[in-house]
């Protein structure tokens, strides 16, 4: 298992372009199973089916210099800053494992890592919960026998800004029985009532994925092909407002 510490924290557009490049290189059999650890400065990352104006308070985003980037996987919008750890696990796995492989198997590495620090539960299929608070969100995709699961871990994120910059649908609030997003989502430090060293958490994630996949972890840098494709994707897709704000299909940007 390859471990990449590859973050471009002040350019989330490129960072997401690299994520897609890493995934595409894996599905073409060009790189080993990969665990990526990364972060961003201050950004809202939208799901593939989301439209920015439906999810983001633009005035807050502008005032606080929050970038808005859309990812190529589904699911919901997240706010990330340097207090939020982002992790991705991209693997060649079971043939026809589908969604079950992602959430019954692949999610385990992350959950087992967190279990070293906290009493963790997985609720509602894939909500990672500590002391009744959600500390992580995940998204995923798969193609044949290739799988990508990526997620956040809130450590010390500005939850106040998160709750202001993200719009939350009234239908969702009603369903979850909470009045504001910040009451349900929290930082791990707060849920635990103590700080944990980030490097210990990262080590735990690496060790647990190495164990889960039965592969020795080795540290690596991106390949030339990964960088080249990331640059191409950045130029043609992720740097474009049409991609980030308008929910156009990927096929529009080739």
């Amino acid at each position: 298992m390859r471990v990449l510490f590859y973050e471009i924290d002040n350019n989330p557009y490129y960072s997401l372009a690299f994520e897609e490049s890493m995934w595409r290189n894996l599905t073409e059999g060009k790189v080993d199973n990969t665990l990526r650890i990364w972060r961003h400065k201050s950004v809202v990352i939208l799901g593939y089916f989301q439209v920015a104006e439906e999810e983001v308070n633009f005035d807050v985003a502008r005032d606080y210099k929050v970038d808005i980037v859309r990812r190529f996987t589904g699911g919901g919008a997240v706010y990330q800053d340097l207090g939020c750890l982002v992790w991705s696990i991209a693997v060649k796995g079971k043939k026809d494992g589908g969604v079950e492989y992602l959430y019954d198997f692949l999610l385990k590495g992350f959950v087992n890592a967190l279990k070293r620090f906290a009493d963790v539960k997985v609720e509602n299929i894939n909500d990672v919960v500590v002391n009744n608070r959600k500390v992580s969100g995940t998204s995923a995709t798969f193609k044949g026998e290739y799988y990508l699961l990526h997620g956040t871990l809130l450590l010390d994120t500005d939850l106040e800004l998160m709750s202001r910059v993200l719009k939350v649908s009234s239908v969702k609030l009603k369903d979850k029985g909470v009045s504001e997003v910040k009451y349900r989502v929290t930082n791990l430090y707060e849920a635990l009532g103590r700080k944990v060293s980030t490097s210990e958490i990262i080590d735990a994630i690496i060790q647990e994925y190495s164990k889960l996949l039965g592969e020795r972890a080795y540290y690596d840098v991106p390949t030339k092909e990964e960088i080249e494709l990331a640059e191409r994707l950045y130029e043609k897709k992720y740097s474009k407002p049409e991609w980030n704000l308008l929910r156009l299909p990927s096929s529009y940007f080739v």
Partner: protein
Amino acid sequence: MRIGIYEHKAKKGLIRATVKVYDDTIEVKITGDFMIFPEDMIFQLENNLKGLKVSDREAISRVVEDTLSKASLFGCEVGDFKTAIFKALDEVSR
């Protein structure tokens, strides 16, 4: 052009259907934080629904079922998409 929007909460994820009606044919846009694989099946669904008669709910229902039968849904069902689209259509005729 008339427009109807409805937000439907599935087990996991929100499905927001926006239906535009031009004369008597529809154009549907589906947004939200749901998950479906392969992802581009949503754009396929929107294409397949385009131009169907607003009054022909049977055809709309059939197209949703046929298109999504080729997809894997996570935390939601084909019926959730139908609900969102039909309730958005109800909003149009209000």
